[in-house]
């Protein structure tokens, strides 16, 4: 299993799979299947995939721990960058296709419409993470500081789920499902953090488990 995960071919396959949603959108565009309101359809599709990739990225750390597959970490940066990629497409769809660069109208949206404020915040928070995603930046910032900065993805995912929830008119079932996944992924981290704190010297002793190294995600 590990050899599959560390193979460069697997990485290439995952990369291509991550482009799948964009390919599907292109396919649907060619076959006139973007509904009667193509701009809305593209906006929703790119938004959905931004949020999904944020969730997939956040799932990497819990999965590698729970499945004992540490090699999964090799995919985290790529998945996070795909979240940013679909976020860029989503944002571009909004400013170009939906608003057609009407700055006044967009400015009004950002500060007047809570759902746009939330979405915009989530997107802007991803920018420094994408910029500092390289090995050089990890070195420059130092592991600890880099890690602290990259916890901003928790805020991005939360903002994304809120953005979706505030957008819908009355059928909140789907946004709530995304919110539930975000909550579960963050709760897992909170649980791990709490566990670790309790196991520090001086803290009440807990049943011993496999020691965790200093990695978080």
């Amino acid at each position, binding site marked *: 299993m590990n050899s599959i995960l560390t193979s460069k071919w697997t990485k290439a396959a995952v990369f291509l*799979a991550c482009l*799948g*949603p964009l390919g*599907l959108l292109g396919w649907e565009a060619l*076959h*006139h*299947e*973007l*509904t*009667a*309101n*193509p*701009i*809305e359809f593209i906006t929703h599709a790119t938004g*959905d995939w931004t949020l*999904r990739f944020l969730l997939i990225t956040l799932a990497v750390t819990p999965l590698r721990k729970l499945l004992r597959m540490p090699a999964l970490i090799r995919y985290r940066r790529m998945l996070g960058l795909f979240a940013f990629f679909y976020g860029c497409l989503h944002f571009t769809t909004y400013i170009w*296709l939906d608003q*057609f660069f009407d700055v006044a*109208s967009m400015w*009004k*949206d950002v500060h007047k*419409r*809570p*759902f746009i404020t939330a979405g915009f915040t989530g997107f802007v928070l991803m920018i420094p993470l994408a910029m500092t995603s390289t090995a050089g930046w990890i070195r420059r910032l130092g592991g600890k500081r880099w890690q602290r900065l990259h916890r901003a993805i928790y805020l991005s995912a939360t903002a994304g789920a809120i953005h979706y929830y*505030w*957008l819908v*008119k*009355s*059928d*909140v*079932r*789907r946004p709530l*499902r*995304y919110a539930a*996944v975000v909550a579960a992924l963050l709760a897992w981290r909170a649980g791990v953090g709490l566990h670790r704190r309790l196991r520090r010297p001086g803290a009440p002793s807990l049943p011993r488990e496999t020691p965790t190294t200093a990695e978080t995600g």
Partner: protein
Amino acid sequence: MLIKRAAELSDADVTPKSVYLNRRKFLAELSAAGAIWLTGRSLGKLVSPGTSVLAASQLSGVVKGPFSTGEKPTPFEDVTHYNNFYEFGSDKGDPARNAQNFRTSPWTVSVEGEVAKPRKFAIDEILKLAPLEERIYRHRCVEAWSIVVPWIGYSFSTLAKLVEPTPKAKFVAFETYFNPGVMAWAQGTGLEYPYVEGLRLDEAMHPLTLLCVGMYGQTLPNQDGAPVRMVIPWKYGFKSIKSIVKVRFVKSQPPTSWNTENAHEYGFYSNVNPNVDHPRWSQARERRLGEFFKRPTLMFNGYGDQVASLYAGMDLRKYF
């Protein structure tokens, strides 16, 4: 943006359709498998594209009615595959798929309340009460998209006069058919059912207010509110209640579905008004389906000459 289907041959014409659909189904399932739970019904949209419209019958003897716009009607395909009819699901594509088994015959509309002659009308009677008129109206959704539809029907006042509203009647309440058996998708959409709407009596009696039984020369498709609906062109689309089974003339303002769901966002009047934004989006502009650029939204959806006097002296920010 051009969204018309090209007339020339496409891949789908060359490959047998079943094979083509299977391949598409396979691809769609493969790419979406991990997200089924999240996407829910959107997967259904991928695997059953191009659902056909239920057979509608041609309406004969339709005459040109008043108030028609000269604007180009929106393609029939768009008006029948981009619908808000939450009883059949809350995605725009849901009603076209899910309303197929909705039986609209036999159908009776009960007209009652503060009237001298309460009466039940069979749909066949409604079709013959008055000459059917084609009226091409602009239709503006509260979600900031719009269409132009050649509706068929006659002024609601024609039917109202037959039941003789008493002086006590000040409002008219409408109710949509509801049967959770054929409208299972309503569950969880966040609205209370049956769907209800209402108008002030003078709004209901206005000649623009249409009792509608068809569109594009045919009876109404299920997803567009078969067999009989209201069309109030100067109000947001949700006021134009679909698939009506009950009309009640009443003394006081009746509850309306979206207002009940969220009074802060959806008022009783809900007149199209570019100057009063929905709390979550601007109403200043709209996207006409089929067009790339948004266009400015007109006061009362462009019907101000006819209806502005109904609201003389009213604060339309307060009574939005």
